[in-house]
Structures are given as structure tokens and as C-alpha cells.
């Protein structure tokens, strides 16, 4: 399962990022690291970006890149 398949309100743990090293680095620096917990806050229409909560920060990521982030859903 990837970030893109999450439903709004769900929480998940990041497992792995399948993407070029540049994208990996960008995600890593903003807190999307394997082991981190995220919550999907909203998804913008027309295949727009997803807004995630990581810690107390809100992070917007494009769909393309979201599809490369493998996650594991967490029970609430």
C-alpha cells in the first residue's frame, strides 16, 4: 500500500520509499522517513497534492511522489 491509497483521516507508518535518490532526499528531509508516522489530512481534487500531518507539521506532496511511498496502516 502507498500513501496515495490512504483515506482521509487514516494514520500510517512509513515503510520504504521507492523513488530516485533526489526524491528520497527531499522526502527524508521533510520528515518522511521510514519509521515515521503520518496522517492524511486531505487530498486535493483533479489528482492534486495530498496534505499530510507529520508531527505537528503539515506537508503537501504531489501524487506522483506519494505513490512511491510504501506504508503500513495503523490502527486508531
Amino acid at each position, binding site marked *: 500500500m502507498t500513501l496515495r491509497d490512504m483515506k482521509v483521516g487514516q494514520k500510517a507508518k512509513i515503510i520504504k520509499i521507492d523513488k530516485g535518490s533526489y526524491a528520497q532526499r527531499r*522526502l527524508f528531509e521533510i520528515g518522511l522517513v521510514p*519509521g515515521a508516522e503520518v496522517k492524511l489530512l*486531505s487530498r486535493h481534487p483533479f*489528482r492534486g*497534492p495530498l496534505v499530510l500531518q507529520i508531527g505537528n507539521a*503539515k506537508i503537501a*506532496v*504531489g501524487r506522483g511522489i506519494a505513490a512511491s511511498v510504501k506504508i503500513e496502516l495503523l490502527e486508531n
Partner: protein
Amino acid sequence: MAVALIGNPNVGKSSVLNRLCGSSIFVSNYPGTSVEVTKTKFNVVNRDVDIYDTPGIYSLHSPGEEQRVVKEMLKSEDIELILNIVDATNLERNLVLTYELLELGIPVVVVVNQIDRARVMGIKIDPRKMRSLLHSPVILFSAVSGEGLVQLIRVLESGDFAAQIDKPGMGKKVAVDLSLSGRYGERGKGYVIPTETSINEADLERAKKARDTAKFVTTQMKAGQKIWLERIQNILDHPVIGVVLLLFFAYLGFLLLLKSIELSEGPISTVLEPVNRLIGHLISEILPSGIVSSVLSKAVPEGLIIPFTIIMPAMLMVSLLMSILEDTGLLPRYSVALERAGSFFGVSGQAVIPLSLGFGCRTPAILATRIMPSEAERFIVITLLSIVIPCAATLGIMASVVSTFEAYLPVIVLTMLATLTILGFILSRIMPGESVFVYELPPLRLPMWSNVWSKVKVRFSGFFTEVLPLLLLMNIIIRALMESGLLNIFHDMENFTRFLFGIPAEAFVAVLITIFQRYLAPLVLLNLPLTPREATIAITMIALSLPCLPVMVMTVREIGLKGLIKVLIMAFSTSFAVGIILNCILPF
């Protein structure tokens, strides 16, 4: 002695420095406000300390322009102390950089900023526990309330920074590999292109240490009741309602701009008229009668009308609206809302920030393109800025050309939008690249009026130091050229310009004047007898033409001469193509 402020984007580095030194570095509520290193002098117990404000970075080891300038500063300046500014509400991520900085061997003092906001959110941080883990002094700070300032000054006064560090061996400079190419293979122009897998063991370990530290030192109390600002933020961040609201705000801002020009024109003219008569009278009295006197006595009063009645209110309003957008945190919300639209142009959502800054003035906007994630995207944004975006002064004077000649406003607006679309489409094809959109949305904040005011002052001061003198000078030159008949030398071009663009030779000269400064060009038109059709074509060509001289200088600095030449070729072709096409399709 030299001290550097380093930290994640938008944590308040510049605010801390302004609070400490009373400096007035631009502060805004979006990541990427500062893109350059700025040096400020600070006097502490009769010693001068150089304090460097730096662009926000998430990691020293990432590629990118911001990281490059920070690393360059660390290498070239003899930094004796790093003030690591961290966001109290987001320690887990901020501390990753802290651990990187601790490895450098330069003494670090951790300034936990925005502690006021953390308290409101129910976050409690124990500085003693934090110090015991980081082996470095920790100061709880608020740039807004001034909390922690005394402690910070005391640290700076003590002078012997190495002594403040607990860990033995720390504080002595060790050789650190900050080589700019480092682990990232080749270096593209200005950008380090990573070639290996970018995240290594050390990175993951630091991330883990940061997470553990954050957990250990913070206590999450039950968050107080939701403040109303947070409620508004939830509405604005709604994917549908929020976007509609944002677009409505943009429309409202535009309307407000037009209305304020319209409303202020009358009163300003009333005040200006007697002043102008006096100036004209004085000039013809003082100067011996002759051509100089007759030109000046007409050109000077005339040259004051447009700057004061139209450009001044336009610049004021644009500065005010821009500052509010920046300080509330609305600007980055446009980045998210317009991300899809941007992908059509081959740029990610961040492009909104430099493009909208361009409406204020395009020169600093070119610098702000550094926040674009790749060289290709950066070039696209610089090109769009150079060709399509009109600055406040240009907007003002274009408006006066439109009303003077009854030019066709819808034609002008539609042409500009069509050009933006076509240009973006072409650029995204010739400079392909997958856009990686990852962007941190800052919390919505109430604008601090003192900050808004100081930014308006800085932006608006350009009216008196640059716009007004240049427009006045230009008006005098045009008058002189017309009275002396020198403008006639362009008459040979008349056949050519009429055939191609349907405009007189003098109007074409105006288009070429955009090389110096775009807002000067429409002034030439105002002195010519033009039909509405001619005015429409000429003003559209001016609106879609060359970047002005200051923008060109900045472009060379940022992306090199080759980049500028490409932009110029595109700008010339766009302007001419627009003229020819309009000449073909507009009815006489």
C-alpha cells in the same frame, strides 16, 4: 568573531536575528523567505560580532542552492558559534539538522524558538533534559515576546564558546568534510546532482536520535481548546472550499487594487495641480528662456502626474497586499491549490511564490526562484517572470495607457493569459523533468502589523528612489526628442513597423525601451497620437517583452549569461509574434 544562525526553513531565524540586533531582515510566513546569507553587526561588551542569517535548510547533506550557500559560508568564514534555531512545535524534524551541526565540531547553542506557540498547543519542553542529551546549551526562546533574549545575549557575551560545551573534545575545530561535491557525484551548474542512493546509515541514525530526543524532552499536554485561527485554517485547507476561497481572495485583491487607484486619482490630482503650476512657473522664471526652459517647464510638471496619481497608489496597494499574503501564510496555500495548474507549465506549486513576488518587483523575485527544486523548473519560472509578469509600476502605467487611448482591455488581458499558457506549454516540453512537489505548509498566523508596515516601507521606498526619478527623466528626454524633431529619425522604420505590427515607428521604439525598464515604455506611448487599435497592439507588445536591466543583471548572476540569452531570444520572439498576430486578427 563570527556567529551563524542555522536552522530549518520558516522556524524564525531572521526573526530571532531582528529581535537580537534590531535589524530589519525580511520575515515572512513561508519556507524560503531568506535565500541568501546576510551579515549583521552586533555589539556585545565592546566587541563586534558578525552574525550571519542564512537560508533555511533541512539538512546540510542535501543538494540545492540554499545548502550550497550555507556550506560555503561555513567553509569561508571563521564561524566560532552556531546558533541552531529550532521550531519548538516540531522538534523531531528540526533536531535532525541539530545532530548534523553537532558533528561539525563548531560549538552549537540550540535556540528553541516559537515557544509561545508551542505552549498554546500544549507542548512542554524540558531544556535541562535536552541539554543533557545534546551536550550543548539550550535556550527556550520567542522572537515574538522576547522570552529568552537575556539568556541568549549572556551566551554571546561570555565569548568563550568552547567552554560552554559539555562534551570533551567538542568545541575544538576538527576537519569536517563540507566539500560541496561530497557524496553527490557531479555538480551541475549551481546544483549538486546526487548520484548515489541519497539516504545513508548516518542519516537514518540521526533521524532516530532526533525522534528519541524529541520524545524524551517534550510532554504533550491536553491541547487547549481550538483557537479561532485554527478553525479558519481548517476551512482554508479544505481541498474544495479552501481553493474557492483562495481564488476569491485573489479576485478581491485585484479589485481592491483597481478601486484604490480609481478612488485616489481625483484627490491626488487636486493636490498636485497647483503644485505643478508652481513648479512650471518657477522653472520658466529661473531658467533663461529658450528650448531648455520650454522643455523643462512642460516636461517636469507633466512627468509628475502619472507617477503620483497612478503608480504611487498601485505600488502602495501591491506592497500592502503582498505583505499580508506573506505574513498570514496564505501565499504557500496558493502553492498547494495551484499545484495542478503548475504541472501544466512543467513547474511545481512553489512557483507561485516567485511569480507573485514579481507583481511587487521582478528583481527580488528572480532571487526567490532559488526555492524551485530543480534547475529546469527554475529556468521556466525565470522566463515566465521576465516575459509575462508585470510589476506594480508597469501595471499602473499600463492602466493609464488603456484609459487614455481607450485601448481594448479584454484583448490585452486575454493575450497575456494566452501567452502565459502557450509559453508554459512550450517550455515544459523543451525542459522536461518530473516535478517533485514536497512543500511544508506553515501555520496560519495573524500578520504582525509592525512587520507588514516595515515591508511596505521597504518595497514602497523604491517609488521615490527609482521609479519617480526615472519616469521624470524619461519624460524630459521624450519631450526634448519631440521638440527637437530627433524622434523623426525613426521614420525610416515606419513602413516596416506599420506593415508588421500596425503601429507607428515611435511606438515600436517604445517597445525596444523595455530593455532599460519596462515601466518607462508606456510613457512614450502617452506622448503619441495613437488610435485604440495601435495602442492595444503597442501596449500588449510592451507588456510581453524584455526583462528590464536590473532583472537581466540578476538573471546573469543567478543562471549565467547563457540563460539570459535564451530568455532574451524568447522574449523578443514572444513580443514580435504577439504584435504580428494581433495585427493580423484585430479589425481596423
